[in-house]
């Protein structure tokens, strides 16, 4: 039943993508509103899924394997977009984010089977906090990624003086710039917090820090990269275009660290 709920969620997001596409191409005037409602429906289904999983597994944050991790990533992204960034919602954002959601849920349903290389971690409050911080950081980076993609498209439209559909439908450059920088800032802070909490928890639970774990190393690297870019942006040393390119490239690294580490051995193996 739980898996079916996840499939329904993916289906809603897929429909939302279609509605966004219709609205964007000017063929469905009400597409944008319909897409938003479909995303809400999908988000509610995903929330039910996690409530059911939490009840079944007896844990507050039911993330115990790769499938859960990917689905929870999608849930966090939908939460940040639908709830925290309600004012920034637009058909162009939806158009970029819904395929990401479908991809994550598709991977959760078909691409990631349950493997439990290590015993399940205990339901320690620090572990919960670690998971939540990390996933909301990833969701923030996804928002920053979407804004980065849209910024580069709109910039191209304005530079090439082509007043086409993208020019009309996409938000202003400076608005997109804010949506690159702000979520990047939240994400970097949350991820730094997740790493620090993760260290504290591993020390408390296993008596050792997981410095040599590949996922930990990549995550530390990602945090430092985002932190450096933010520092340069705050000091006005980096242009918006460069920040946009970084937000897109760095998100690829986030996805890589998320999915790629499943092929690497390490202490995060239960997630991979």
């Amino acid at each position, binding site marked *: 039943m739980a898996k079916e709920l996840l499939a329904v969620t993916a289906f809603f997001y897929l429909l939302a993508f279609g509605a966004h596409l219709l609205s964007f191409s000017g063929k469905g005037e009400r597409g944008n509103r319909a897409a938003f409602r479909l995303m809400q429906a999908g988000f509610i289904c995903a929330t039910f899924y996690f409530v059911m999983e939490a009840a079944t597994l007896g844990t507050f944050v039911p993330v115990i394997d790769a499938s859960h991790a990917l689905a929870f990533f999608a849930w966090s992204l939908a939460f940040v977009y639908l709830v925290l960034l309600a004012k920034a919602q637009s058909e162009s954002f939806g158009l970029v984010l819904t395929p990401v959601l479908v991809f994550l849920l598709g991977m959760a349903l078909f691409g990631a089977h349950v493997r439990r290389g290590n015993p399940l971690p205990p339901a320690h409050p620090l572990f919960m906090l670690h998971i939540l911080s990390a996933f909301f950081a990833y969701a923030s980076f996804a928002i920053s990624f979407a804004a980065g993609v849209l910024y580069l498209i709109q910039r191209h439209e304005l530079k090439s003086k082509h*007043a086409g559909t993208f020019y009309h439908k996409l938000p202003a450059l*400076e608005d997109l710039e804010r949506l690159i920088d702000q979520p990047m800032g939240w994400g970097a802070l949350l991820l730094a917090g997740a790493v620090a909490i993760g260290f504290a928890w591993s020390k408390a639970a296993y008596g050792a820090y997981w410095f040599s774990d590949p996922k930990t190393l990549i995550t530390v690297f990602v945090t430092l990269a985002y932190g450096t870019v933010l520092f340069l942006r705050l000091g006005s040393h980096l242009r918006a*275009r460069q920040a946009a390119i970084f937000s897109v490239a760095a998100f690829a690294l986030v996805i890589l660290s998320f999915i790629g580490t499943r092929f690497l051995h390490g202490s995060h193996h239960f997630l991979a």
Partner: protein
Amino acid sequence: MDMGIFALGLNHKECPVQVRARLHFSPAMTEAALRAMRGDAVVQEFALLSTCNRVELYGYSEKKAAPRERLLTLIESLHDIRRAEFEKYLYFYEGRDAVRHMFRVAAGLDSLVVGECEILGQFREAFRLAGQAGTVHALLYRLMEKVLKTGKDVHARTKITQGAVSIPAVAVELAEKIFGSLGGERVMVVGTGEMGVLTLKNLREAGADIAYIVSRNEERGKALAEEYGAEQLTMTDWAPALKNVDILIASTSAPEPVILHAQVAPVMAGRRDRPLFLIDIAVPRNIESQVNEIDDVYLYNVDDLKGVSASNLKLRRGELRAAEAIVETAVAQYHSWVEQLSARPTVERFERFLNQVMAKEIDVLARETGLSDDKKNQLINRLRAKLLHRPVEKIKEASQNGGVAKHLEALHSLFDLDELD
């Protein structure tokens, strides 16, 4: 009945601007025209719309052939122009065509710039004046209401008003695509040509801060600087201020570029947190085209602005079909209302006929059976409602497609309604 509605006029499509200007009705002349038409024997209802792109006279006349001549006489009497000079540019619509024309004009579908909104306000004002002068009654009043509502519907339900079309408006639209809200964005204008000043005005209205005025003409520069609360600079000392500027408008008459790549590049190298929007309205160009290659600089010259305008206009034209469909529905609804209105006297006669027949027969029945007056009246009312229901519904249905007349003729001939007292 709506066959009596007419629209006579000329517009930007056929009539040269010189002739239009001579036929323009000033507010005083509009008032005089309305006064002249109040209580007119030929034209029973009348309204007049005069803008820089069109002069149109609307009304209702029971005499089909006469209004055109009456209106031409009116125009000649108020303007210093002979009929031969403007008659060839005139169009004259009657009935449903006139109604459709009014809907299209008010919705901006017949405008020089398709979808412009100003015409709706001008239409509203024209009918307000006609209403005030007492030249508008039931038919035109209802038509006016419908025309204004449909105009608003077209603007709200289609994208026909979207996308700027004039050069200054396109400049503002582009600035908003770069900066979002223009509140606080600092503007410099180099050269005070007419188009430059107009763009400045538009940017100010959109919330931008007019910071610097650069002009060769010191007096004009000073006047503008005072008007906008800006700092006045000369053609030799403006460059250092460029680093403080977000939007720059160039509109000098200089024969070669006055804003060079070599000036802009160092400014942008030192500022990585803000884009710079350059609007080159001058012909020949005032800004070197290579400036657009600098990161975070967006340079648009007149041809680029015209390109955006053409693209926006194309977008608006793409909405024409949807807008025309809304207009066509409104025309049909108005036509249906007029048809139903024209059926009212016949239906009332038919009702009287039924009353007479029923009263006579039921009186006989009442005498024979001892039916009380209350019961008798109830029976008459019920029978009348049942007998009228079907024909009235049929007439309503027929009013949707202009078939009321044949039903009315049938009622008249079948029941000899003309001979009814």
